[in-house]
């Protein structure tokens, strides 16, 4: 029996939209604006998530003034209980902890992104960087998975609760969390719009289109790319923190290549090089994921022998292929970047009758 809870569904979709937007905006800045093919998005997202796993187990007890227990091993359950109590009873500690998490995650991921961008200089072809980042992400995942104390290796850390947990009522706490996610996404959007339309952003796009010309203009290419990687990676890590909080559980199994591909699909669907496109792509994936899942539930209920949970992935692949074939620029293709001077010059050059 299908009985859709429209309010809760909308909140869930919007929460995912906010989280995905951060990831998509990050990739759009890196690839769409600066031309760095980051196929290691899962790595930067996971840095945020792992940071949350560490701060919730090490810093949160300190902030709340309780004695911390080792999060892994035999005291795992006890530590979890402690976290839940703190998150329910001491919202201020929860918020300070979250702010610190964002900060540490952004700094860590930014530093990694900055370092990675210098690797570009050593690579013969641009797409090698894509591959290096792709496998680099997986390597880090395997190492974290094996590290005993960081996030309890393969066990992961549960009880990484979202900060509005103390409200008690799931409807209002998830609503507040959704507002947090969407707000952060919008801030990232406004910031990246400004960045894209600044002289720095135009230079980066120039760099993407033609490295030699921009180099000829004497701009510091490697530093510019490094800066954008720093910003993009930090945004992705913020998205990763929210991604982990939304599930309430940090585990290496979530940060695999498929996550990276999903983010790429968002950017390609929306329109590469266009921040608005990134938002649209994030929204589409959040909606499409929910719709296909609901469709699979409904169709499986109808008693067909086909397993619609598989059809869901096939439909997803087909939509992506159709999109790549018929709208390779995305739904919102990149518009040419112009300055005010350009607009004025253009209007002056146009014939009078067309201008009115």
């Amino acid at each position, binding site marked *: 029996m299908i009985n859709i809870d429209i309010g*809760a569904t909308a909140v869930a979709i919007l929460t995912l939209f906010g989280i995905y937007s951060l990831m998509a905006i990050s990739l759009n800045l890196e690839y769409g604006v600066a031309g760095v093919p980051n196929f290691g998005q899962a790595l930067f997202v996971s840095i945020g998530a792992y940071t949350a796993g560490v701060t919730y187990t090490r810093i949160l007890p300190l902030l709340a003034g309780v004695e911390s227990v080792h999060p892994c091993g035999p005291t795992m359950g006890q530590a979890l209980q402690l976290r839940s109590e703190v998150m329910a009873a001491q919202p201020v500690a929860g918020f300070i902890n979250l702010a610190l998490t964002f900060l540490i995650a952004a700094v860590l991921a930014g530093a990694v992104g900055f370092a990675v961008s210098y690797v570009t200089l050593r690579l013969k072809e641009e797409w090698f960087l894509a591959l290096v980042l792709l496998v680099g992400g997986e390597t880090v995942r395997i190492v974290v998975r094996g590290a005993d104390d960081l996030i309890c290796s393969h066990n992961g850390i549960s009880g990484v609760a979202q900060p509005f947990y103390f409200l008690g009522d799931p409807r209002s706490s998830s609503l507040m969390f959704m507002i947090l996610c969407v707000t952060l996404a919008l801030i990232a959007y406004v910031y990246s719009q400004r960045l894209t339309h600044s002289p720095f952003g135009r230079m980066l796009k120039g760099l993407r289109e033609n490295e030699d010309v921009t180099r000829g203009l004497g701009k510091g290419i490697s530093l510019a790319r490094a800066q954008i990687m720093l910003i993009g990676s930090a945004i992705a890590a913020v998205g990763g923190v929210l991604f982990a909080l939304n599930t309430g559980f940090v585990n290496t199994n979530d940060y695999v290549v498929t996550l990276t591909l999903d983010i790429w699909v968002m950017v390609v669907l929306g329109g590469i090089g266009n921040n608005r496109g990134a938002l649209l792509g994030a929204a589409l994936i959040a909606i499409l994921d*929910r719709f296909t899942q*609901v469709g699979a*539930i409904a169709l499986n*209920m109808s008693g067909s022998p086909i397993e619609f949970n598989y059809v869901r992935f096939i439909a997803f692949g087909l939509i992506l292929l159709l*999109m790549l074939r018929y709208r390779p620029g995305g739904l919102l293709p990149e518009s040419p970047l112009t300055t005010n001077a350009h607009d004025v010059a253009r209007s002056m050059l146009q014939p009078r009758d067309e201008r009115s």
Partner: protein
Amino acid sequence: MFKKVLTAFLILMLIVMLGAATTAQDDMETYVLGVALPFSGNLGTFGQDFARGVELAVSQVNAELDAARSSIRFEIASADTENTPEGASRAVSTVVQTTGAQVFVGPLTTSEVLGAKQFADENGVVIVAPASSGAAGAIPGDNIYRVIYPPDVFASKAYANIALERGHENMVVLHLDDPFGNGMNEGFTANFQAGGGGEVASFAYTPGSTELSSEAAAVSAALAGFGDNAGFFCVCFLSGAQAFLQVAQIDPVLTSVQWMGNEAMTAEEILADQGHAQTLANADFITVSFSSESTPLTQIFIDDFNAMFDKDPGIFTNYAFDAANIAMLTMLAAGNDGAAVKSMLPFIANHYIGTAVQAYLDDNGDQAIASYGLYQVSEDLSAFDEVGAYNGNTDTITYN
């Protein structure tokens, strides 16, 4: 073009949903039983089989309700966890927000269960996990009940006892690199050494590996290093066990020692290969399996499953069947309400006798009764025969 396709697709979805919504009969009360299992990913086999177990339980309960002229019917709403924690969280929340389901059967692994935990706890949704047994999931007071399969502390003790009884001085363990495999390995090592055993050499393999030749070589070398009186213990999922057997069956060291292994290795797919079955028989392979044939319901379940799906139930499928029954019985008693189900489920579970054994829940909401059967390959290599029993609560092994 794309817009047209997308619009057509969305309209189709809408029609489907409306269609499904209107087919519900008016005078009937429908309780939705949520199912969240890994249909895709490397545990697809288990996901599908578990779903069939739930389907069988629902059809039987519905038939009984029909005969009793009850106005209540159960319906399944299933979603794919994609075998990731975040996927499990999305699967559970989607089913809840789409159908209003309050009770779930699934997910499968401990990390998936923990992924769904936050949503379930916050929204008062009850999760009845049929086969999660990792120590990380033993949490008191939450909405997760692990009703049938007892925590691995019991089984790891049983294996340690058998190893000591067989006179093994040292042991080599090959285990999955996940909470289940690592937990079993740690528990086994501790119990084996506490009981006077010597060294334990452990090797981990990545879940989903399709090829384990270097792992087999490492196990073989470690066994050779230990010399006589060493034994081998495999904690593997089915596909890993198959890949391992494929290379181990020709290894001179591995084929000359005694083996133990977890119950995933007793699947019929293993016996389907003559070489694999023979290897296990020669190695005195023994497994400690929770699916004991000691209740009269086991055979009935197997027959009913065969009648409905025209195939034998897979390994563990009966746990899903039992978990679904406990969930539905609780819902019949407490109503379609998460909080009521949560408070009543331990009572119902403690009075339920299933296809394996009775359930009895401890403070963590986990199965506390630990009576296992011991199984070995039969002489004609066609099946696994029960050769003894292990009572985890008294820590005793008896042979038939």
